[in-house]
């Protein structure tokens, strides 16, 4: 759906408001389990900042340790390199079916489309992701992919696609999908997961989930591929004692997510089951470009909890699709210009009222609203404003810096000049009409 259509769709607003209000209640309960949440956040921030400030060292450590555990590490500069690495593995294994657990990194590189292009089925197995996949859509929210759909919408979708009874309940649909996907897990050749954390000191990846589909994905197929952004590093295993509960408290309001797994490699000699091969693809895709920026690089601390999305008054109203990017909400607005280009995505940094709610909720203390301002500054420096906008701002500055200049022209002409800048306000707002004589002129000439 086009961004402007969905942003003003009242039913869509009601659905996200409802879903976010349920999230708010849960998070309230979750945070009450802490006696000192502030200190927990300071620790989280410290750990991720240490990891990011020494990123290349920790990545080397991770690579060395997980390789010693029997996994293979592949470095990818961009989506193309990651995709061709996956394609090579698929071909080597004559794969027919790939099962996937939820991963925003694979969304970033459009993995499904590329795999299906080879004639190989690529199946999302997280319920929310599965729903958006069969609807032919993209995830709406980084934690709750089908947040924009009501239960009626989903029942109708399944009725159309699978001929399930009309108005099926969430319980019925869940059981239906469970059964359908069991077969797929058992028969899949390749399992693809993301990674919430890359653990440097032991050489392992960590995965957080509630459904059990990630566990199925890395337990049944004979090959496991984990695709992770290079910023997912944490220095040590013990950091997860803090980060797992912190991520849950901010992501869903749970005390801790149901399944928190660490995978340190393929099946070991003497172990009962598990993949014969494990690959970890470390994806840059312009993260190192973001890393060059002395303020914005802090956004790489993000643990993708989604709290800033749910807290953002803009997100609450316009929703996830309007960002037209993999990562939406405040964190998406900070990083997307770096991942996908300033000229096309810097407007996201400006669609912010600088209320600071995002910064307040962030569990790793990323100063999100400040970083958005730095993006705006950099965009202007790079001259990424359009010509008309820059000239307009200059004219504005000239005219408004002196009262007499404002009255140099009459109301009619002002109305016409105002129309030149109409797009700046968008289609949904109207410019007020200027009176023929300004207030200051009327005051001076009053009888």
């Amino acid at each position, binding site marked *: 759906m086009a961004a402007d259509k969905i942003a003003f769709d009242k039913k869509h607003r009601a659905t996200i408001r*409802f879903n976010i209000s349920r999230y708010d209640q849960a998070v309230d309960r979750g945070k009450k*389990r802490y*006696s*000192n949440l502030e*200190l927990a956040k300071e*620790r989280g*921030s*410290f750990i991720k900042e*240490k990891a990011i400030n020494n*990123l290349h060292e920790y*990545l*080397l450590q991770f690579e060395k340790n997980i390789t010693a*555990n029997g996994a293979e590490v592949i*470095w990818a*500069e961009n989506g193309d390199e990651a995709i061709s690495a996956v394609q090579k593995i698929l071909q080597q294994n004559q794969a027919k079916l790939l099962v996937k657990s939820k991963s925003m990194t694979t969304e970033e590189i459009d993995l499904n489309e590329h795999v299906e292009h080879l004639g190989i089925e690529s199946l999302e*197995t*997280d*319920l*929310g992701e599965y*729903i958006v996949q069969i609807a032919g859509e993209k995830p709406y929210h980084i934690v*709750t992919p089908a947040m924009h759909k009501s*239960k009626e919408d*989903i029942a109708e979708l399944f009725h159309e696609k699978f001929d399930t009874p009309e108005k099926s309940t*969430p*319980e019925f649909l*869940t*059981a239906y*999908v469970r059964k359908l996907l*069991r077969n797929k897990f*058992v028969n899949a050749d390749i399992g693809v997961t993301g990674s919430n954390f890359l653990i440097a000191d032991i050489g392992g990846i960590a995965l957080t989930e*509630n*459904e*059990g589909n990630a*566990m199925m994905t890395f*337990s049944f197929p004979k090959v496991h591929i984990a695709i992770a952004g*290079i910023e997912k590093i944490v220095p040590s*295993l*013990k950091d*997860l*004692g803090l980060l*797992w509960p912190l991520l849950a408290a901010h992501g869903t309001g749970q*005390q*801790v*997510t*149901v*399944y*928190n*797994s660490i*995978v340190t*490699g393929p099946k*070991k000699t003497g172990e*009962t*089951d*598990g993949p014969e091969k494990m690959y970890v693809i*470390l994806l840059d895709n312009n993260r*190192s470009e973001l*890393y*060059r920026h*002395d303020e914005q*690089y802090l956004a790489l601390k993000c643990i993708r909890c989604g709290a800033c999305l749910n807290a953002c008054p803009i997100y609450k109203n316009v929703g996830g699709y309007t960002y037209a990017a993999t990562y939406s909400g405040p964190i998406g607005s900070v990083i997307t210009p770096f991942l996908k280009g300033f000229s096309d995505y810097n407007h996201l940094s400006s669609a912010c009222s600088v209320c600071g709610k995002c910064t307040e909720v962030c569990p790793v203390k990323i100063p999100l609203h400040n970083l958005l301002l730095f993006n705006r500054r950099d965009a202007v420096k790079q001259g990424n404003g359009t010509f008309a906008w820059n000239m307009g701002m200059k004219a504005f500055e000239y005219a408004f810096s002196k009262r007499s200049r404002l009255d140099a022209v009459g109301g009619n002409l002002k109305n016409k000049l105002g129309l030149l800048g109409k797009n700046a306000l968008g289609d949904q707002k109207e410019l007020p009409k200027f009176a023929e004589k300004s207030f200051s002129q009327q005051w001076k000439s009053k009888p």
Partner: protein
Amino acid sequence: MSSRENILGRLKKAAEKRNAPTAAQPDFEAPIYLQTDKSLADWFQENLELVAGKVLRPKNLQEAVALIKQLAAEENLERIFCSDPVLQQALKGQVAFQNDAEDFIQLQAGITPCEFLVAHLGSVMVSSAGASGRRLHVFPETHLVVAHKNQLVAHLDDALEQLQQKYNGNLPSMVTNITGPSRTADIEKTLVMGMHGPKKLFVLLCDEPF
């Protein structure tokens, strides 16, 4: 130059140029979670039951087996899978179980031991080190964990620390901290149990170690 060298090179160069000051380390000792004066076993039970797990408290392994027998009847569990030699020994003659790869796909329930129980979260930490492997912890509709009091720790940090001590640089290929039965809230945030993993999780927590 390879992608690896390019990426690492850029990161190194930027970090050196930035030379960001190390942030002051916050207090890593002070408690951040609410405390309790309950016993670890009671605390564990309370927390796991908050997330829809069930905890039974037999005296010893023998009593645990009797409880499993009862549960199997109540829950109509017919195809029960158990791979762990110690538990198999205890079940023998009391509860019928399977352990053949061909039967795996048909199983209804799985019985496994665990590594640790985390009282603060009500979590069961399992690993692929034992005969249960990876799959048996997630595939069955009902998961029965047989554990004992010496496996209880207060916090997740303690479990991770003891895990590292136990395996001394040779960690199992998979470690999972399980906190309750599988669930989803992907449809309108409505909670539904048993999405892909078990619908029911029972922990039989024995007083006496085995």
